[in-house]
């Protein structure tokens, strides 16, 4: 046998063993040289790292050494999907972005939906790994086996919707046949909380992944729906699992509201619990005079002319395109905000008119920054202006709580780094530290440099602990529908630090499991067993809950090791003074999280098997997780 034949035979042998649901290849792109190539990955690696964040964490750890910061050409931008993407389970267009992010300069894992994951798989790839820096603006075009870096000069300055429109015209493909994920002006100008947005309304938003893409001078990735088949190892089993999942989503009391209204019920529910963040944490009580009935989920939906805008294979009544019904922007097409949009573009900045919020939210998506960080930045500025810590002269104009036009003006200043916007483009933590004094005390952030999602976590301590200890710039747990599946109680006293810490530790990595499958986290509101069943049927592995739990904790350990190597350790696992302050009103009034914080951290470390002094996963923890190689890296033994 000649060497060529030997290689071909080896490749065939690998493909014979290829688990169902996988394309079996990663597309590698070097922007510096303009070269692209594909590499096989082995079935063993697939079982160990699954895809999505699991695969991304491995690549990040192996290929991004500590001296390669977020803005270094050698930083990797991994766009990965997983084994369920493209299969007939609801919500299987999932994309996970993994990189070293601009806000924390540590690991990032952030998700979006739409069609990208499915289109990528149909093109024959499980992930795209991007390195280098292009000499001029380019976009990556994938159309089955044709992979090209194309000139993006004409796209520079366009927002994300304009970019998608332009590429649709250029490529002659539209609708679900084309998925485009791009950066807006914010990413081009290296705003530290720039996001990556796709398919008109889906955003991978966390930890400045859009700034990484901007630094690489990559304006967009456009994938035409490919022609390669993706099959499950056990199609009947997969259909059964898909049916079981859909049934749960439609009937489980907790999932049913998500099925009917997506995240719209969040505003009313969370306000009742004191978790709706109003005016930058100055209160969580809805102000007198606000017509709160407009914020009920059915009203939010009926208040707009809307039509469904579901993602790949999804049956949820969730994503919609709306038409602005009144006001100065009447008739504009926008995407229906997620809860996070209602919060970040609305309540956090004191804006309580749903029509204005919906408009602003889409402007944020199109300029392409993280709506949460935007809310914390603008809310902070508004409070500082009110208190005189930031002057009109510094800002350049008058700004008051709830001023939609003022917020939009700030958005443009931030995305173009103009005037005071240049400082704000650094994100809340850096801007607050630069200004210092009492202004700093008002800012909501974690010491790692990220900000929380759109909640008042002073009434949701589990998410505060998770946000502060996580390695990704956002959450690593997230409550499953049935915490009992992971040995956790159905409910806890949410202001008992011991119970909170044990719960968060017990759930570590759960989200990594879901985020590695190529499926939306809203369509996994079922038992973890059902998700494992879908994975088993897709891949042809007998995959049980224990393996899912171990996988999630393994991924968390790799991401933590990456961050530790970058100098991000336990000293950063704290909320800023305002973030960790005690609410003065509302249902969580007088509940002081910081009184219990050290004890919570201690219990969390114990629960996850990490060393509280160094933050390192203990040697025995690493061995249990099958990470002896990491044990040698971290402990030298």
């Amino acid at each position, binding site marked *: 046998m000649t060497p060529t034949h030997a290689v071909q035979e080896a490749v065939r042998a690998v493909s014979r063993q290829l688990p169902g649901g996988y394309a079996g290849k990663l597309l590698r792109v070097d922007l510096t040289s303009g070269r692209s190539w594909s590499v096989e990955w082995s079935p063993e690696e697939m079982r160990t790292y699954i895809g999505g964040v699991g695969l991304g964490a491995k690549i990040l750890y192996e290929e991004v050494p500590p001296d390669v910061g977020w803005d270094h050409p050698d930083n990797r931008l991994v766009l990965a999907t997983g084994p369920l993407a493209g299969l007939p389970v609801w919500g299987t267009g999932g994309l996970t972005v993994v990189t070293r992010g601009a806000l924390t300069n540590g690991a990032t894992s952030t998700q979006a939906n739409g069609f990208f994951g499915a289109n990528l798989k149909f093109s024959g790839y499980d992930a795209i790994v991007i390195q280098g820096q292009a000499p001029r603006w380019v976009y990556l075009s994938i159309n089955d086996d044709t992979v090209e870096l194309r000139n993006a000069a004409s796209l520079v300055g366009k927002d994300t919707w304009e970019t998608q429109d332009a590429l649709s015209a250029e490529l002659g493909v539209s609708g679900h046949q084309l998925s485009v994920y791009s950066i807006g002006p914010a990413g081009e100008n290296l705003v530290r909380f720039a996001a990556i947005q796709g398919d008109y309304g889906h955003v991978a938003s966390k930890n400045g992944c859009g700034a990484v893409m901007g630094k690489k001078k990559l304006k967009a990735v456009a994938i035409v729906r490919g022609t390669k088949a993706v099959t499950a190892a056990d199609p009947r089993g997969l259909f059964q699992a898909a049916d079981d999942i859909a049934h749960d989503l439609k009937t489980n*009391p907790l999932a049913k509201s998500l099925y009917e209204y997506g995240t719209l*019920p969040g505003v009313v*529910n969370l306000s009742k619990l004191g978790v709706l963040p109003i005016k930058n944490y100055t209160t969580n009580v809805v102000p007198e005079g606000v017509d709160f*009935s407009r914020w*009920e989920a*059915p009203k939010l939906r009926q208040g707009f002319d809307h039509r469904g805008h579901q993602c790949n294979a999804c049956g949820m009544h969730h994503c919609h395109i709306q038409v602005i019904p009144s006001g100065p922007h009447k008739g504009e097409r926008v995407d229906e905000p997620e809860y996070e949009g209602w919060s970040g573009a609305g309540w956090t900045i004191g804006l309580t008119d749903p029509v204005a919020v919906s408009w602003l939210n889409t402007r944020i998506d199109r300029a392409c920054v993280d709506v949460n960080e935007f809310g914390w930045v603008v809310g902070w500025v508004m409070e500082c202006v009110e208190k005189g810590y930031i002057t009109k002269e510094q800002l350049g104009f008058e700004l008051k709580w709830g001023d939609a036009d003022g917020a939009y003006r700030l958005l443009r200043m931030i995305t173009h780094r103009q005037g005071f916007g240049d400082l704000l483009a650094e994100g809340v933590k850096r801007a607050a530290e630069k200004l210092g004094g009492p202004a700093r005390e008002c800012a909501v952030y974690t010491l790692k440099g990220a900000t929380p999602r759109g909640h008042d976590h002073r009434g949701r301590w589990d998410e505060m602990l998770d946000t502060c200890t996580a390695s990704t710039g956002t959450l690593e747990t*997230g409550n499953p529908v049935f915490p009992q599946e992971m040995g956790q109680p*159905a*409910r806890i006293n949410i202001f008992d630090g011991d119970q909170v810490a044990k719960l968060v530790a017990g759930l570590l990595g759960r989200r990594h499991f879901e985020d590695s499958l190529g499926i939306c986290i809203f369509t996994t509101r079922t038992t973890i067993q059902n998700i494992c069943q879908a994975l088993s049927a897709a891949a042809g592995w007998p995959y049980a809950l224990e393996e899912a739990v171990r996988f999630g904790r393994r991924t968390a350990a790799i991401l933590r090791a990456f961050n530790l190597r970058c100098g991000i350790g336990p000293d950063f696992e704290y909320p800023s003074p305002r973030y960790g302050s005690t609410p003065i009103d509302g*249902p969580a009034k007088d509940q002081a999280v910081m009184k219990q914080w050290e004890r919570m951290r201690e219990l969390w470390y114990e629960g996850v098997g990490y060393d509280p002094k160094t933050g390192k996963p203990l040697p025995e923890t690493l061995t249990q997780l099958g990470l002896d190689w990491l044990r040698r890296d971290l402990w030298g033994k």
Partner: protein
Amino acid sequence: MPKVGARHATVEVTGWVTKFVGGDGSGRKLYTEPVAAGDTVRDILRRVSARHPELDAALWDASKRELGENIEVLVNDAVLGISHTLDSELQPGDHLTLVGQYMGG
């Protein structure tokens, strides 16, 4: 049966939870419940849910002794656990609120 000499507490069912008591998932439904000496949060909730099978199924866990994972209870606008537990005695004039738990971002 309400005890002799009972006065009243209110039970407010809000937003999504109204679906379990014949509503459309918005607004609120208010119930006035007699409270007698010794009545606990649990007693009042049991009485209300006994009249609404769907609420009963959603509110309680399988043992029917503890709350399930779907609905949060506030007592006088404070989350259960701050000033009250399920076994706290209620006073006339107290106000219970049922709020659907919420997942998602």
